[in-house]
């Protein structure tokens, strides 16, 4: 019981991170019907940007952890947003209106470029980071003295993610920009007939998705304390699975799917096998695609692929 509760806490924390990344996949798919394979690598870049920023800030003598984290969050999100904007501009926009697979191939190329760029500039070895927020709460002690821990780190990850997602939801549902994004997602041609700058809206979608991925990158760095240039691939596939599971195109679905994948992965590792934890996510992807292609909250009409 205590052990399961601990897994639940861990799973939710991990799921939040996947959910943040999944939102980016689902947004881009919704608006231009393509799978942005480089998105996981933007997440990885976001994690590296966060690490660099944290190291630089501590070198500058900023010792307040909340301040350093806040600055890092903003910095990483801003620079990752620039990455997202650039990727769309150079790799996808010129191919719009081209044959269906062209942007997908371009996305895979972009993903390799980003991985190699980070591998060359930051080194191939895993980069560790000391825990920034040590300690936590012991919620309860179960049988055999097993202590259920809720670390400050987990609270920070979950709370930050919830705040960011709440802000994002507000943006999408309540603001003119969010309405324009949804209009483009539902009917790009009609949106332009209403005076919406559709190209700019698509760019902004990439920027926002990349910023959310960078936040996820920071959370990942804090949570695991170690990153390398390859984390984007694995986390990307899992987040993509989350997006498919939730129903591609659905924003609440992406978060829900992320939570589901985080929980499944955690429980799988806890009760079956840690070595095969990634297999769990991939198996789910295959099963969902076969038996439930529209996902949990998906719509029947998104068969754009």
């Amino acid at each position, binding site marked *: 019981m205590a052990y399961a509760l601990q897994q639940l806490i861990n799973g939710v924390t991990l799921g939040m991170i996947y959910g943040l990344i999944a939102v980016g996949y689902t947004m881009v798919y919704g608006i231009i019907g393509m799978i942005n394979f480089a998105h996981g690598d933007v997440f990885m870049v976001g994690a590296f940007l966060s690490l660099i920023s944290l190291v630089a800030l501590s070198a500058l003598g900023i010792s307040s952890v909340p301040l350093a984290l806040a600055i890092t969050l903003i910095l990483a999100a801003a620079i990752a947003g620039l990455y997202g904007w650039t990727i769309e501009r150079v790799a996808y926009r010129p191919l719009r209106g081209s044959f269906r697979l062209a942007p997908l191939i371009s996305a895979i190329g972009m993903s390799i470029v980003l991985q190699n760029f980070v591998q060359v500039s930051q080194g191939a070895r895993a980069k560790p980071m000391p825990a920034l927020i040590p300690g936590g709460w012991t919620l309860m002690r179960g049988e055999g003295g097993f202590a259920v821990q809720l670390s400050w780190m987990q609270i920070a990850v979950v709370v930050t993610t919830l705040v960011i997602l709440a802000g994002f939801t507000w943006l999408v549902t309540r603001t003119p920009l969010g*309405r324009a994004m949804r*209009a483009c997602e539902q009917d790009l041609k*009609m949106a332009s007939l209403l*005076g*919406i700058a559709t190209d700019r809206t698509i760019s902004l979608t990439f920027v926002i998705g990349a910023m959310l991925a960078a936040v996820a990158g920071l959370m990942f760095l804090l949570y695991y304390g170690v990153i390398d240039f390859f984390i984007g691939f694995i986390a990307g596939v899992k987040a993509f699975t989350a997006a498919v599971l939730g129903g591609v195109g659905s924003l609440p679905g992406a978060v829900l799917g992320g939570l589901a994948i985080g929980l499944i992965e955690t429980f799988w590792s806890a009760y079956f096998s840690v070595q095969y934890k990634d297999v769990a996510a991939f198996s789910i992807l295959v099963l969902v695609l076969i038996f439930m292609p529209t996902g949990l909250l998906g719509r029947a009409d998104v068969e754009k692929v």
Partner: protein
Amino acid sequence: MTALLSLRGVTAFYGAIQALKGVDLDVNEGEIVTLIGANGAGKSTLMMTICGNPRARDGQILYDGADISALPTHLIMRRAIAQSPEGRRIFPRMSVYENLLMGAHGRSAAEAEETMEQVFALFPRMKERATQRGGTLSGGEQQMLAIGRALMSRPRLLLLDEPSLGLAPLVVRQIFSAIRDLNRSTGLTVLLVEQNAFQALRLAHRGYVLVNGAITMAGTGPDLLARPEIRAAYLEGGH
């Protein structure tokens, strides 16, 4: 009268297929002009080409004295041109209220609310359905919403592509009389594509006939209504 919109030798293509073959057409300020023609004649293409999608390959599209044929669609539409397009194109997962707000994109919330009241006065049904999702409206309600959404930008030039499609005769009359009222009270200029040639020609000041991507006849409403070839081709049994 000055022409608000003038097309001069406009051509448009879908890939290798030529859909418009040198169209000349004028719409004067304050006029209702109708465009009639058989299925596939290029009426919807003409409406979309005015809005820059597809773009005119040759010729000029002069609006308010300036050539707009090279502008991107969204910048054309920001010049107080609005279109209620073929197929209505309601945003299916937005409420009626949000669909209308989209029509007022770029205008202040206060202006949007004010115009929305006018649209509700025109189509009271839209007010009753304000929170319903666009995709679940009936065909006629969607048509009202499409026209209402186009009016939300307070256009000078309104392009209506088959507003009567799929509507009951009573609703068609309502919509046509709404167009006439708007034209009389606000001087709204309208370019109207219609299958229902008889009613359209009675409503419009002038009309054009489009055949195979080219204008073959033009004249005042009564003039065109009286021509035997028009009666034969577009009016037989079509009241």
